[in-house]
């Protein structure tokens, strides 16, 4: 994380808390129990006040930032006041948005600058609940997404691909088109091998070469329907060429890492590379 914000960076982060009401089995920053709300809040105020006015985007994250309740809304207001040009990207599990009053407050505070990244792990509620480690999470998140849409807040769906959900990615894509066709875009994300993902590797780790075909079917279905879709965190050499156009350089600039073979690779500068924080490299990497 940065001490100061940079105008063009994709990692200007306001960290709200390390607590969370989910316990996702692949969490890369496992939640803590400490009461850190005030400490973080004060830090964040400093960051916002000292940020360049032209900052393009700030990311509000945690843990689960909505656990801060009204001070989360306050934070959004403060960004709007101090940085009127800046987009506000909130990463949340979406459960708190099942309360439509809370969503309305967020809309009033964030106006048209706020967009929410919400993880959706499966079209089947129990798979989603198991992956997020909380019973009832799916229903709350789905309701939250509908409430956000109803307020006209932009939504990004984030799907972290793991061993428990990869084989239903095509069904998930269909589910999204049928039930959540109003989302702004859908991101399929490779997993980081760190935090609980490493601890639970047995249960959840799956190699991109093993899920590429399901992933591509899902991407194609959404793309056929004109729902914007992106692939994050998966190196280009692990995707069929016709899917390269969906892949973005998604890994935060301070985390990105390349291998020696990458130096000879013709797509090195379009490729997201690998997580610097990851414990292992994906199988099948090769310069192209």
């Amino acid at each position: 994380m940065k001490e100061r914000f940079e105008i063009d960076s994709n990692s200007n982060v306001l960290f709200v808390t390390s607590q969370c009401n989910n316990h996702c089995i692949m969490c890369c920053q496992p939640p803590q129990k400490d009461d850190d709300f005030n400490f973080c809040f004060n830090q964040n105020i400093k960051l916002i006040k000292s940020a360049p006015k032209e900052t393009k985007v700030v990311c509000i994250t945690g843990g689960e930032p909505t656990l801060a309740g009204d001070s989360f809304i306050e934070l959004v207001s403060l960004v709007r006041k101090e940085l009127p040009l800046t987009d506000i990207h909130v990463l949340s599990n979406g459960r708190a948005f099942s309360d439509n009053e809370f969503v309305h407050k967020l809309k009033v505070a964030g106006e048209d600058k706020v967009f929410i990244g919400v993880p959706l792990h499966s079209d089947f509620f129990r798979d989603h609940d198991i992956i997020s480690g909380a019973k009832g999470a799916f229903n709350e998140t789905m309701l939250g997404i509908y409430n956000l849409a109803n307020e006209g807040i932009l939504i990004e769906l984030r799907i972290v691909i793991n061993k428990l959900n990869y084989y239903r990615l095509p069904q998930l894509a269909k589910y999204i088109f049928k039930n959540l066709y109003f989302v702004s875009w859908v991101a399929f994300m490779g997993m980081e091998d760190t935090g609980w993902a490493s601890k639970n590797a047995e249960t959840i780790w799956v190699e991109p070469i093993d899920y590429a075909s399901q992933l591509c079917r899902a991407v194609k279905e959404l793309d056929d329907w004109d729902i914007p879709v992106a692939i994050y965190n998966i190196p280009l050499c692990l995707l069929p060429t016709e899917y390269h156009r969906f892949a973005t350089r998604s890994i935060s600039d301070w985390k990105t890492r390349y291998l020696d073979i990458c130096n000879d690779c013709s797509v090195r500068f379009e490729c997201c590379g690998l997580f610097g924080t990851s414990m292992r490299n994906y199988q099948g990497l090769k310069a192209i």
Partner: protein
Amino acid sequence: MRKYALLPFNFITILNHEILINELGDFIITPIGTVQKILSHSISDEDLYKTLVSNFFVTEEILPSLLDIYASRLRTKKGFLDDKTSLHIFVLTLRCNQNCIYCQASSQEETSKHCSMSLEDMTASVQMMFHSPSPNLTMEFQGGEPSLEIDLIRHGIETAEEINKEKNRKLTYVLCTNCRKLSDDMLELCKQYNILISTSLDGPSYIHNKNRGREDSYEKTIAGINKARAVLGNEFVSALMTTSELALDYPKEIVDEYVSDGFNGIFLRALNPYGLAAQNEDWKRYNQRFISFYKTAVDYIIEINKHGIFFREEYASIILRKMLTPYTTGFVDLQSPAGTINSVIVYNYDGYVYASDESRMLAEIHDYSFRLGKVTDKYEDVFCGSVAKRMGKIWANEALAGCSSCPIKVYCGADPVRHHSTQGDMYGFRPTSLVCEKNKAIIEYLFSLIVERGDEVLPIFRRWVK
């Protein structure tokens, strides 16, 4: 598997598969025997079970927490009802300069008098149109040949534009013309008001000329299309075909004609049993031949698409949109509640308002069952009058015997006017209904394509319905 309860769904058997269909039109293709397993709580395929739950076919909760999502999606599907009547057809005249063998409007000689709308009735009709709450109003000019009445068209549009200064609706104009005599004046008027041209083209010259009863009809139509395209731009000119008995033998040739004329779609329309066309002898036989004609043509169109050409069949596209997308479909012949009055209304040259295009054709054979009132009557008395009320009881297929239990009803619609004219009873009797037979056959055919050749046809179908 946990304990679960059923949500409303139905199924049909196609090519040894059971297709489960819910009230939203979402469907799941399953192996034969699946419904029995669902009922007896013995599904062993875990993946299928997950699909059933996530798509609202079964639920583990007595009051499913996400049922409101289902409700909201149903509201979207029925979205065509939100705006009320948006398509307003103005039948300007019965005069015509062609003698189509199946003329559905009982046209009159080009020179005959007393069968055109008066200027006063046009004014009253336009005023009535603005009583519709719809934010989008389409004025469609029909005939006979409406371009013979250019002054009437101009008067109608100018009246509408004037009223619209206050009402602020989105106005669209359509001229249905055979393109025989598209005068420069007419095209200038089209250019001025962005009028869309919808013409009739039945296929290659040997079919079109026979159908249209003139030696030079094809030539004239093509010349008219080209002239209109040159002035207005390609996207302003579309064509409709009607499948005469002769046409039934030439599905591919007709499609080829449309492709080579630069159209990117075709609407394969069956004949209507109205006007002159009612004398056509054996409707049942025609219906069956039309169904095989339709299948051959659609098969052929799919082949064309596989060669990288975008070309769609419009009727299939409407049904596929209902099957494959969460969106609403505003096509009056396949709606429930029916499109008559709810989505379309007709102001006839005789000064009366009719429930639909077919309703005014019945009037030509002295059947005034669907005459709603005079164009000078009050809006409420016409749109919510006694005829409308009577139709309202039987225009939702969810509530019609035969349809209510039909597994594919969400893709189909109710058609009281057609059943009145073919079965003498607007309620209709499905087992012998030809509309039912045709729609069922087409819907089942589309399903069979998806079951048998899904990977091949679905990417094409998705392009059609966007």
